């Protein structure tokens, strides 16, 4: 039963899915800086609207995005609360020892909250609509300039793609070994910490040994198929820009322009 989904990709077929991974990665990356352009209610509304439109464009259930935010909820709330209680200036509503609630504080807390949440939401849009392999291809492209300083970008890319390819295989293998040891009376869930750590050996040792075996076999197979390093290799998988990327580019430029116009200088 080797049907697992790697990463958070959820199959779909909207225009966001059809965008080139390079464009999506770049948008995500620059978004982190662009969000600092927002500094008043109008600009924050604009960027929130942009994010919401992206979410709607995936045609996925809201729960998917909540799942993306959930692990970060405490960090976001904690940071927002720090802003709320430690920002001074403006009108004071409440004051006790070193803690203040002021109108500046309330505003900063909301801004910080939005900034965090929107960044997570936009990256979730990227990860749920882009296959891990495409992300790896996109990263390879983004890393291209590093070739100037002799970083083996092709090798890194090949390693990434092989790693992705073997995730489900290793997952299956883990499940199989776990079941085999359970059948021999091993218990992975019971007992205290020491007992549990000891119980892990029958799982970890075979997994490690099998992985080594896979690595040896795979390197033999690669050599037999003529792999001599990345020099002189051509590429079968290529990325290509399409009209959907114009939607990405156009809307992103529109966002930046609007933020520039409406922000307080």
């Amino acid at each position, binding site marked *: *039963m080797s*049907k*697992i*989904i790697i990463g958070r990709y*959820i*199959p779909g077929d909207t225009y966001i899915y059809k965008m080139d991974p390079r464009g999506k990665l770049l948008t995500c990356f620059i978004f982190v800086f662009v969000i600092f352009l927002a500094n008043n209610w109008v600009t924050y509304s604009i960027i929130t609207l942009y994010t919401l439109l992206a979410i709607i464009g995936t045609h996925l259930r809201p729960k998917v995005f909540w799942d993306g935010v959930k692990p970060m909820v405490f960090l976001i709330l904690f940071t927002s609360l720090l802003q709320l209680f430690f920002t001074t200036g403006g009108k004071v509503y409440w004051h006790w020892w070193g803690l203040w609630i002021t109108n500046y504080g309330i505003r900063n807390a909301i801004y910080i909250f939005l900034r965090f949440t929107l960044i997570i939401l936009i990256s979730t849009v990227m990860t749920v609509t882009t296959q891990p392999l495409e992300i790896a291809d996109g990263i390879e492209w983004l890393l291209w300039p590093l070739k100037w300083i002799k970083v083996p970008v092709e090798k890194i890319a090949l390693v990434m793609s092989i790693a992705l390819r073997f995730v489900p295989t290793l997952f299956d*293998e883990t499940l*199989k*070994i776990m*079941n*085999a*040891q*359970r*059948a*021999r*009376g*091993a*218990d992975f*869930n*019971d007992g205290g910490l020491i007992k549990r750590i000891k119980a892990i*050996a*029958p799982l970890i*040792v*075979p997994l490690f*040994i*099998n992985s080594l075996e896979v690595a040896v076999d795979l390197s033999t197979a690669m050599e037999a198929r003529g792999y001599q390093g990345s020099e002189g290799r051509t590429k079968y998988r290529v990325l290509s820009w399409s009209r959907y990327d114009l939607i990405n580019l156009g809307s992103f430029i529109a966002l930046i322009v609007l933020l520039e116009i409406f922000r307080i200088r």
Partner: protein
Amino acid sequence: MSIEFKNVSYIYSPGSPLEQKGLDQVSFKIKENSFTALIGHTGSGKSTLMQHFNALLKPTEGEITIAGYTINKDTSNKNLKQLRKNVSLVFQFPESQLFENTVLADIAFGPKNFGYSEDEAKELALKWLKKVGLDETVAERSPFELSGGQMRRIAIAGVMAYEPAILCLDEPAAGLDPRGRKEMLELFKEYQESGHTVILVTHNMDDVADYADDVLVMEGGKLIKHATPKEVFADASWLTAHHLGSPTAAKFAQKLAQKGLQLDDEVLTLNELTQALKAKMKAGEA
């Protein structure tokens, strides 16, 4: 100890986009001390069924009675030790489960888990090391220094060492050479004859013909036939329709029949074929 399945269904990843039916309303009863073959092609639900025997998977629906346990969807994961001691599973390519520093320690892992003392476990391990056809001299060696075939034997010894009442094996001879295959199957036959139940998951119809007395045929998660080997292999067109093969001897008899030589009995093994041919020739002489 008999095994009974009552309307057992199993669903993989229920409620997710990958939801899939593994078993569909499976009911049967296997008699104690039988040698049952479980056949069907890849993806037919054989492995899923097998994992229900010791509650690695629990039915989504229905109920299983096995070795004094009743297993249904509410069965807790606790207190399954006695069940797993009595009903043992050998997965495909079991050599990948070896992990101990020495061969003996690896075989003794199961017995120790199931409550045997250190000494008893060692003793059992040594006994089964020899039973699977390995020499005592490998006992203190690392299992990873040995050949693939030897590792397979060690893994199987590790599961048989606590002498389960029901032994269930998934393609235990896959990849072994003909002699290794035969030795392995003789070992399971002997185990059955000494008063245990053996369930063999296999693609090899000759093994079914040579060793089994009962056959379960799976297809698409359903049990489509439960009968003796003679009954299962009697209908060649049914077998073809379900992408199942015949034993080599039966195929040979079919070729004879096509050329006009009809044997009097249904033959499944080389021995039966020889006897039937001999009878035919002798009858002709008389």
